């Protein structure tokens, strides 16, 4: 049990460091780092606070506390993936609309240029 929880702690610390470094290098925008940092922090807290983890395991009816942690972490990250799917879909829609608008504006611009050249 200790080995698994230690691995979880290591994983959460690694995730926090990776996200912070990415934010610092402007690879991840701050608003999109919050969900990752919150998820990693929750993982860190539950992997270190045995009493808290046992309470949660009892609430979930799980006899092996690390399994409760895995369930919690899995749920949190599923929600994060869902949130990012929403964001990506919105960005894709915006991107398509922008690309179409650019093409239409270029079309109008070219028509104006042709008209001016013809005058």
């Amino acid at each position: 049990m200790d080995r698994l929880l230690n691995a979880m702690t290591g994983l959460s610390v690694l995730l926090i460091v990776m996200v912070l470094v990415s934010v610092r290098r402007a690879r991840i925008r701050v608003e999109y780092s919050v969900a990752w940092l919150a998820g990693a922090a929750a993982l860190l807290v539950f992997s270190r606070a045995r009493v808290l983890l046992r309470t949660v395991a009892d609430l979930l009816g799980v006899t092996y506390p690390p399994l409760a942690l895995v369930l919690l972490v899995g749920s949190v990250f599923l929600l994060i993936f869902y949130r990012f799917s929403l964001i990506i879909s919105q960005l894709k829609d915006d991107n398509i609309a922008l690309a179409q608008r650019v093409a239409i504006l270029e079309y109008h611009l070219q028509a104006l240029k042709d008209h001016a050249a013809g005058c």
Partner: protein
Amino acid sequence: MSQAVAEAKLLILIPAFNEEGAIAGVVQAVKDVMPGVPVLVVDDCSQDATVTLARGAGAQILALPHHLGLGGCVQAGYKLAFELGYDYVIRVDGDGQHDARDIPGVFETLRTSGCEMVIGSRFVNGNGGQTSRVRTAGIQFFRMVLRPILGKTVRDPTSGFVGVNRRALGVFSRSFPLEYPEIEALVVLQRRRFQFVEVACHMQPRRTGRSSITPMKSIYYIVHVLLGVFVNVLKYERRAPKQSRRV
């Protein structure tokens, strides 16, 4: 017909992606059949000489800044046509599979039937002999799926030879499926109680290039389109009141 064309604002829309082998011939064939009607090639960021050849053949060009896929490409053309005040738009594929001589029939039906969409169908009057067995099986499957949703049989739901009037143009310029749009577009129209009709058209073998739908992709195609159809069926939208039919 020529007077009708002059009175109604008609645009021929040709979505194209790397169609340098066929595009000039397609534009020329359309111009021969429909002289004086503007032809707009929507280039989906081709890497070859599609734009140059289409422009050389006399088409206007709407060049997308990056590749959007067929739905995004067609919708860009619909948006421009709507902005420019066109009453009718007929879409013809850029690979030369559609016979330009069928355009007047589609236009006439679009103009006189009152339907919002006219589909050029290879299966009306039994013209579907050129279609592969796999594609025919797919078409039959989607006919079966669409029959209860649309309330009538559509014989060629995957046809890209489609004419729309300004009402449908207004809808499609706001909401149009992005990948494999033909089948989902029918459901989008049905949700607004718009009507469509099929007219006979002739399909020719693709002049150059290959279909983007490979055997592996056809599985993805079926799943994607099925999901798209059901999402459109379930989508919450204020439905338009029933209109009196003019057909």
